[in-house]
């Protein structure tokens, strides 16, 4: 079982990102689950979203998760959210920030000794999509770090997932995904 936890602010697209990822993974025959903690969250409130992936049917509906990957798509959440909760020794962190990985770890000592990758999904989405919607670039970064799927396969499926959006926005998302894939360190 592969388990992923997203840290986001309501409105940044973590739920869409988690569901999009589930959709792509499902096409490969694996079983998926994507869910989130909402509460009555207002736009901008810190929130979490979750993915489970397994070869077996996923029966577990507990919200509790010791994640293999933690994806943080808002830069400030590493200072205010409990993003290391229930971490495992080999949990991998992919964090949106304008800082370098070294600068980030220096500013947040909880990350010392951890597997940490950084990418500026906010900047990438602003420059490509035109809005700070860092969800799809984070998926590009996840593809690079996890080696889960080939980029062509992933992008092809994301085009299907995003098909209801205008073509211009879909194209911008593909550029964002590719940039994050290339830029994550």
């Amino acid at each position: 079982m592969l388990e992923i936890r997203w840290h986001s602010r309501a409105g940044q697209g973590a739920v869409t990102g988690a569901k999009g990822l589930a959709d792509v993974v499902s096409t490969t025959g694996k079983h998926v689950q994507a869910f989130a903690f909402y509460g009555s969250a207002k736009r901008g409130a810190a929130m979490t979203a979750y993915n489970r992936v397994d070869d077996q049917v996923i029966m577990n509906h507990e919200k509790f998760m010791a994640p293999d990957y933690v994806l943080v798509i808002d830069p400030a959440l590493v200072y205010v959210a409990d993003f290391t909760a229930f971490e495992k020794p080999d949990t991998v962190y992919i964090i949106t920030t304008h800082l370098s990985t070294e600068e980030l770890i220096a500013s947040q000592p909880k990350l010392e000794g951890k597997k940490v990758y950084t990418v500026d999904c906010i900047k990438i989405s602003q420059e490509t999509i035109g809005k700070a919607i860092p969800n799809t670039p984070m998926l590009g970064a996840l593809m690079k770090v996890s080696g889960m799927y080939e980029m062509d396969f992933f992008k092809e499926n994301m085009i299907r997932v995003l098909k209801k959006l205008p073509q211009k926005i879909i194209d911008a998302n593909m550029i964002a995904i590719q940039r994050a894939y290339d830029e994550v360190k």
Partner: protein
Amino acid sequence: MADTMELRDIEVWDGNMAASQALRQVQVDVVAAYPITPSTPIVENYANFEANGYVDGEFVMVESEHAAMSGCIGASAAGGRVATATSSQGFALMVETLYSASGMRLPIILNVVNRALGAPLNVNGDHSDMYLGRDSGWIQLNAYNPQHAYDLNFIAFKVAEDHDVRLPAMVHQDGFMTSHTAQGVHTMTDEQGFNFVGEFQPMNDMLDLDHPVTHGVQTEEDWHFEHKARQQHALMTVALPKIQEAFDAFETLTGRRYNLVETHQMDDAEMAVICMGTSVETAMEVVNELRAQGVKAGVVGIRVFRPWPLEQLAEVLKNVKAIGALDRSSPHGTVGMLYNEIAGTLFNTDAKPVLTNYIYGLGGRDLTKAHLVGIFNDLKANMDAGKPTTALQQYIGLRGPKLSFF
């Protein structure tokens, strides 16, 4: 003629989308709705399908849930295939009209996305609203995941609209844990889905002007009792066999098997938990892990909550030595509903298991696998002692000091 929607064999849908796709595929004629979290997307999606030509129907916006169910009652009495969705406070506001729908024998389908009842206000999933509906005369089917939310809607229409049944039915799913959790859902084609339920066959419909009828009349002590008795008779003697028939036909069509009472590892189980909704599946996973350690544990899931499958449950539980009844609703002043129902189910049988009650998950509080392991540890101690080693009713996952009663 509605447009056909091409679906993949497996779609990644949450429970809400799964339910609304079923409403589209059976081509519901009228949805009267007053949306409420977490069931909102069900009627929102239906409205979207309707506006885009994927369903030949009417979406009626009303001013409250009371009006929503009233609109459904009117449309159903007029002779249409009718459905809506609600949750929590909205369900509570519908209660008066729920009794009207069942008393008038109208086959309306209500998707209830289970949510806590305030105060305090809470949008998350528990079973308070589902429990509130249990005396209303509706058939109540219980989904544990988005696939079930999809499948059970087809079952619900097929059973409710059967002229021998003519009772409304609810399809329950857990708020957020099912309604907003995306999982793979095996789909039927539009043609398969529609044909499973078939064209709506009205009965005593008010728009059949050649055969005038009246609905919802007044009866006092002269006939009221007889009407209620006939309703109970249909629910008690006709509904369960018809549900079983629908389950069988559905399995033939899709290969997916549903049972009045769902069991997991119960053949040789010495102890079992009984629960509803997503908890059933989490408990199944825990039982698989306990089995690997040689613990003879099992799970019983309530699939048909009303009518209560008393005989089937008694059969499933006859050899079990310890039972934990898990209620996701505050019983406010007594033991949990499942404790009482199971006690009533087994009292006149030879089975005398130790029965205890757990209240859990109120307002969406997580039921973890660790909680379930703890419950099975209790059950093991009860089984070994041959009597309760804990209080009869315990609260699981609650902050602060341990809370228990009786």
